[in-house]
């Protein structure tokens, strides 16, 4: 049972080029797209930020968290608490506070969970996320099972987030910034140490690296970035409920990272877009006779997940890279 492998840490030039073209296409969506498309792609980008934050743990450090949605939800709830019912609040202080709340929770929970590894880590992260879930589910003052609603998007001052297009570009800017930051981090001494912990934790300790503090820092940072995604999600949709912190949400994030190809952050973006698109596709399937195909979307998603795990465990980027490589070397 080897540690999960990161793939394509250095992206082939052809892949980078494809991503750059995709980015230009993405920036043009609000110009040509309908309102529905703009909203859909915005939510995909938010999920991409969430998936990248998990990739820092899953792909880079080799820690599989089944409770990452807790930090996504916490920042969203934080924004909901800070937004009064009658007016908008400033983006510039609510965003740092909400992200800080997620980071603090990740630091606290991380203190317990990063002592464990492997299977324990999976189970314990899931259990702690469930604890956070119950906190919000049980306590009426925190929204209870119905969740909370936000009437206004945060007020940015310089630009108007109530405009769907502006919100789209703001989310895109967050996505690009997060990607650039994480790519830089990946090749910094800290990122190299995390990759070392994934490859061989014992050896890293023997070399004198404090793996506990490195893992805790990674867990906290990943929680903070998940918080950024959760904040944007709450701002976009205007509501938060406990299900957004549930274990299905966490498992979806794992699936996004796997689907794209993990350990390089670009895969997490591709995976998030592909996963969210499929989710919409499956939910909108037409009925066949009396069989309500769309209602049973979980069946198709389940079969798809099982098929991916069996057929393409290296994800879309892995397949793409192999295909490009084959074209370059000419053998088929």
């Amino acid at each position, binding site marked *: *049972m*080897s*540690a*999960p492998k990161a793939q394509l840490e250095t992206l082939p030039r052809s892949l980078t080029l494809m991503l750059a073209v995709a980015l230009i296409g993405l920036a043009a969506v609000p110009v040509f797209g309908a309102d529905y498309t703009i909203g859909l792609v915005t939510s995909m980008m938010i999920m991409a930020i969430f998936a990248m934050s998990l990739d820092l743990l*899953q792909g880079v450090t080799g820690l*599989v968290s*089944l409770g990452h949605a807790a930090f996504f939800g916490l920042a969203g709830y934080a924004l909901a608490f800070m937004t009064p019912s009658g007016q908008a609040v400033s983006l510039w202080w609510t965003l740092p506070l909400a992200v800080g709340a997620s980071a603090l929770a990740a630091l606290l929970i991380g203190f*317990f*969970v990063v*002592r*464990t590894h*492997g*299977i*324990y880590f*999976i*189970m*314990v992260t*899931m*259990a*702690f996320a*469930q*604890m956070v879930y*119950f*906190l919000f*589910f*049980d*306590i009426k003052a925190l929204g209870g099972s119905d969740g909370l609603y936000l009437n206004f998007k945060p007020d940015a001052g310089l630009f108007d987030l109530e405009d769907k297009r502006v919100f789209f570009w703001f989310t895109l800017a967050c996505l690009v910034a997060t990607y650039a930051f994480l790519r830089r981090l990946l090749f910094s001494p800290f990122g190299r140490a995390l990759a070392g912990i994934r490859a061989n934790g014992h050896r890293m300790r023997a070399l004198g690296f404090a793996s506990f503090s490195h893992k805790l820092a990674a867990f906290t940072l990943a929680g903070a970035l998940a918080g950024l995604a959760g904040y944007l999600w709450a701002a976009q949709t205007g509501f938060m409920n406990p299900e957004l912190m549930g*274990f299905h949400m966490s*498992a979806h994030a*794992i*699936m996004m990272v*796997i689907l794209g190809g993990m350990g390089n952050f670009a895969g997490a973006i591709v995976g998030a877009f592909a996963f969210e698109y499929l989710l919409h596709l499956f939910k909108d399937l037409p009925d066949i006779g009396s069989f309500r195909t769309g209602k*049973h979307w*979980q*069946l198709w*998603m*389940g*079969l*798809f*997940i*099982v098929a*991916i*795990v*069996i057929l393409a*465990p290296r994800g879309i980027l892995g397949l793409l890279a192999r295909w490009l490589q084959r074209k370059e070397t000419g053998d088929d």
Partner: protein
Amino acid sequence: MDFASFLIQLLNSVQYGLLLFMLAAGLTLIFGIMGVVNLAHGSFYMLGAYLAWSLAARLGSFALAIVVGTLLAVAFGLLLEKVLIRHFYHRDHLDQVLLTFGLIYIFEEMRSILWGDDVHGVAMPALLAASIPLTDTLSYPVYRLFMSGLCIVLAIGLYLLISRTKLGMKIRAGAFNHEMTEALGVNIRLIHALVFALGVALATVAGMIAAPISSVYPNMGGSVLIMCFVVVVIGGIGSVRGALIAALLVGFVDTFGKVLLPQVSGMLVYMLMALVLLYKPEGLFKA
């Protein structure tokens, strides 16, 4: 809290703990021996409850439903192991998590297509429907005692199977050193298939006997799965004895938490887990 209500809560906590043990035992065995993390374990509990509901109606007898349901569960477990799980023993935990998460979705929808999305009640067998009076106003249902009794019998059976039989010896040997056991001529694939089917059967039986008191509803496996994870983490992964003690502990904390501290009862069990992790990161009984 007077003595009679204390006794009732104590019996309830033991009953809940034993039920959790039935589920957690399979989970911890499957991990300890095959190294597979199975998120779909809660689904077997749900399938058991629905089987009890549909078979009891069809066969007209709850006891017969349990027997037939158990046989179906074993067959289902063997099939699932052969088709899918077997190929994931040596894969990353990550792949196992995803595979079994996909299975949760598939099982949930199979349930929806076969049995619909309604909540159902299952009648208690007439023989066990009575209550034992404790005071003028308080009584304890016989069926809950029967549940605890059956779980204890199965727990003892499981203990004897693993520690006293030849098959149990092979199971333990396989968990200790899988290649060496195979080299000695033990059919380890068969052992693995049997252990997996045993885990499925235990979870299904737990679902079947819980059906009359918990009712039968969609997604009922999810919350139970997470409780089982907590039990396995506290008890130590791979340890059946640890699972028993942790399950009783969790049952006790959860039941009394709901009575004494109802506002935070949902979180108490997780706090217990955090406390254990702080001092024993690998659980109380490391296997």
